[in-house]
């Protein structure tokens, strides 16, 4: 038995494994949701472009950029908050908040992220506006796409791609300002003195923006992005989504005249196809909820306009939940929007989200800006001195996380008769405490020798205490340590 035997000559026609992309030429539309999308585009792009240029005074020892990811210096600055690498869990907390925030948004208002705020949507929208400005609206675009390559077409394509490219360069160009001092980097970009990684990053992001926003577009949402799948699983019967009310629209009347001639025989949908024409992902919302729908709600705007024209109530296509759709179709009362949004599931998400946020704010507000760490030298653990005393040595790390140099006092607690001196000093200066200056926003690593009388426990606990002037009162950090004497290794 083989494949050839089982295939009859009059079998199914040969099929391509891949379907060629069908062009999508969304038509311009006006309406409430279009205005909302404009507003969100302006706000999100504004945040993206403006943020790195905001200044924030942190004194002479730290950068004055409000938001800065300083990879070389291993610091993350965000307005009044500075994060060291060992505090990276705050970033993890932010990511968890972002995750729960998306759960919250998805369970209440569906794929609002996809429809309004996702960079892919925002940049594609921007690119489509450019396309309309250069090529004209939907029909002109289709005509141009089908027309042979004439000088006029080449000029239009060249102009469109040039504008796209400029936007793409600006996109990548803005990204790098988050990682270095923006004004300095901006100047060095043009003088050719910026590091290669800056140009490389701009290059990569220019390419991705140009390709994803200009050509891949809805294919990113439908084939590449995992989030639509996750969101689909997260939505339930009480999540809002863009819905065609087929119980009201069907059967379609293919024109106002037929509906007027046969009152009652047809639904409100006149099959004008405006909802399809304006769709940026090229789907037909009347086929029901589907993975291709990013819920941008532009079809609602288009349909509402038509309903106004034919004098029918708005909302043939509208935001609705699965539950309210069923109720409305059967003629029952529809629960209010408030009850749809405020329900246990969304309230629990909100409680989690805000709980984590408040906990992090509290933790950031009360965290230590001074830490001390002492590691005993273990090779050898102790040394006998000619005077009979025993000496241990410790590697002490003091972290000054404030943006100013601080002169601190390092002292010993416990270990009777013990004295200590800095590795750079000498035993003649041995004391119970000494002063040490830690540079601004740095970790100081220093060796400290501790000597104590021979008599005592083989392992004796004591502590190093560092006291630093704080903004209001003194900050104190304690590190417990252990002093070893002969016999400690037994």
């Amino acid at each position, binding site marked *: 038995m083989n494949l050839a035997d089982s295939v009859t000559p009059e079998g199914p026609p040969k099929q391509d494994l891949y379907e060629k992309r069908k062009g999508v030429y969304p038509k311009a539309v006006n309406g409430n949701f279009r205005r909302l999308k404009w507003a969100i585009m302006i706000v999100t792009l504004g945040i993206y472009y403006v943020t790195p240029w905001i200044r924030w005074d942190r004194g002479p020892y730290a950068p004055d950029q409000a938001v800065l990811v300083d990879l070389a210096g291993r610091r993350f600055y965000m307005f009044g908050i500075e994060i060291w690498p060992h505090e990276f869990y705050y970033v993890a907390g932010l990511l968890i908040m972002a995750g729960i925030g998306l759960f919250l948004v998805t369970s209440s208002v569906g794929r609002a992220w996809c429809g309004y705020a996702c960079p892919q949507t925002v940049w594609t929208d921007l690119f489509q506006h450019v396309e309309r400005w250069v090529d004209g609206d939907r029909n002109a675009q289709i005509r141009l796409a089908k027309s042979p390559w004439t000088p006029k077409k080449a000029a239009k394509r060249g102009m469109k791609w040039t504008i796209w490219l400029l936007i793409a360069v600006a996109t990548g160009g803005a990204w790098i300002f988050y990682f270095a001092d923006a004004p300095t980097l901006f100047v060095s970009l043009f003088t050719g003195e910026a590091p290669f990684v800056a140009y490389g990053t701009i290059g990569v992001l220019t390419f991705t923006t140009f390709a994803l926003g200009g050509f891949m577009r809805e294919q990113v949402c439908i084939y590449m992005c995992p989030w639509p799948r996750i969101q689909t699983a997260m939505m339930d019967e009480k999540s809002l989504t863009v819905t065609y009310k087929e119980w009201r629209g069907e059967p379609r009347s293919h024109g106002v005249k037929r509906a007027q001639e046969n009152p009652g025989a047809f639904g409100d949908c006149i099959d004008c196809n405006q909802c399809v024409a304006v769709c940026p992902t090229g789907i037909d919302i009347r086929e029901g909820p589907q993975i291709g729908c990013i819920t941008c709600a532009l079809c609602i705007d288009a349909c509402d306009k038509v309903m106004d024209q034919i004098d029918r109530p708005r909302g043939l296509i509208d935001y609705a939940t699965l539950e309210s759709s069923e109720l409305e179709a059967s003629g029952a009362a529809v629960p209010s929007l408030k009850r749809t949004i405020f329900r246990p599931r969304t309230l629990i998400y909100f409680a989690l989200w805000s709980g984590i946020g408040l906990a992090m704010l509290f933790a950031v507000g009360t965290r230590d800006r001074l830490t001390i760490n002492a590691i005993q030298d*273990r090779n*050898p653990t102790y*040394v*006998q*001195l*000619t*005077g009979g005393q025993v000496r241990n040595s410790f590697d002490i790390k003091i972290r000054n996380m404030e943006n100013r140099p601080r002169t601190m006092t390092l002292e010993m607690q416990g270990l009777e008769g013990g004295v200590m001196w800095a590795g750079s000093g*000498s035993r003649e200066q041995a004391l119970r405490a000494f002063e040490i200056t830690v540079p601004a926003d740095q970790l100081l690593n220093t060796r400290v020798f501790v000597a104590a009388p021979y008599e005592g426990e083989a392992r004796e606990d004591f502590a190093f205490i560092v006291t630093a002037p704080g903004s209001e009162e003194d900050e104190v950090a304690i590190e417990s340590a252990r002093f070893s004497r002969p016999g400690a290794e037994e």
Partner: protein
Amino acid sequence: MAEKRVDEPTGTDFVGHEWDGIEELDTPLPRWWLIIFYACIIWAAAYTVAYPAWPLINSATQGVLGYSSRAELAEDMAAVEAERAPLREAIANIAIEDLPADEQLMQTAVQGGRSAFVVHCVQCHGSGAAGSAGYPNLNDDDWLWGGDIAAIEYTLAHGIRNPDHDETRVSQMPAFGADGILNSRQIADVVSHVRTLNGAEEASAASARGAELYTANCAVCHGENGGGDRTQGAPNLRDTIWLYGGDRAAITDTVTNSRFGVMPRWGHRLDPVTIRMLAAYVWSLGGGEAPPVAVENEVAAEAPSDEPG
């Protein structure tokens, strides 16, 4: 193949191989794959011309670019050396006594010394420089030949009891038992006295007899009170630090047979800067002493060891 058959759905020929009803199709390679394949072949051919590649009987083809990984390494090493040259020069030119005060230079020297130490010194002194029986602990403040940085540098350069070297540090304790200077009872008495010096034993009749023998035989080098003498490498007997062990058996062995610990001289093996770096590292381990004051008298030299153990 006897017959040529075509797979209907794909229009591709069968190769003729079949496993459990699954047959292999003669699908042509994608063009991009072939292009990359040919490009790789061309690349490989060009590579064997440009770089050392084909093995010959005694060597290999050298390649037209003249590349060798050994030369590349030498280049990298030279670059590192060139980078370090100013610091090494500064270390070479500074007076050794002033080195510890120059914080940055001292840090460089200590780090360089640490690297050299793990190569040349750990075999005897141990990775933590804590030594073992016969090999001094370099962390403590008990120095046989002096613990200021210049003395350490001298010891490193010239060694201890190095044969065939005039400037080496040298001293020899007599083998009191083996050479018949003292009999075994007298040696036992001396050992008792020595052990009272740091408090390991209570004074006794034996130690009193030993004290007389000590004054006659030992005090000339180890000092009247047992404080030792660094000018001739005579150990301080009043502390609890013993190079060969401080129990009766070990001290008896030392007095009877003497010891003759040797440290190699490094002056002819290592460059002067490396020796300085090693001196800085050993000095920094915790026992380093300040340079001796210019006018030094014997009382001052013995004073630090008068503390009871």
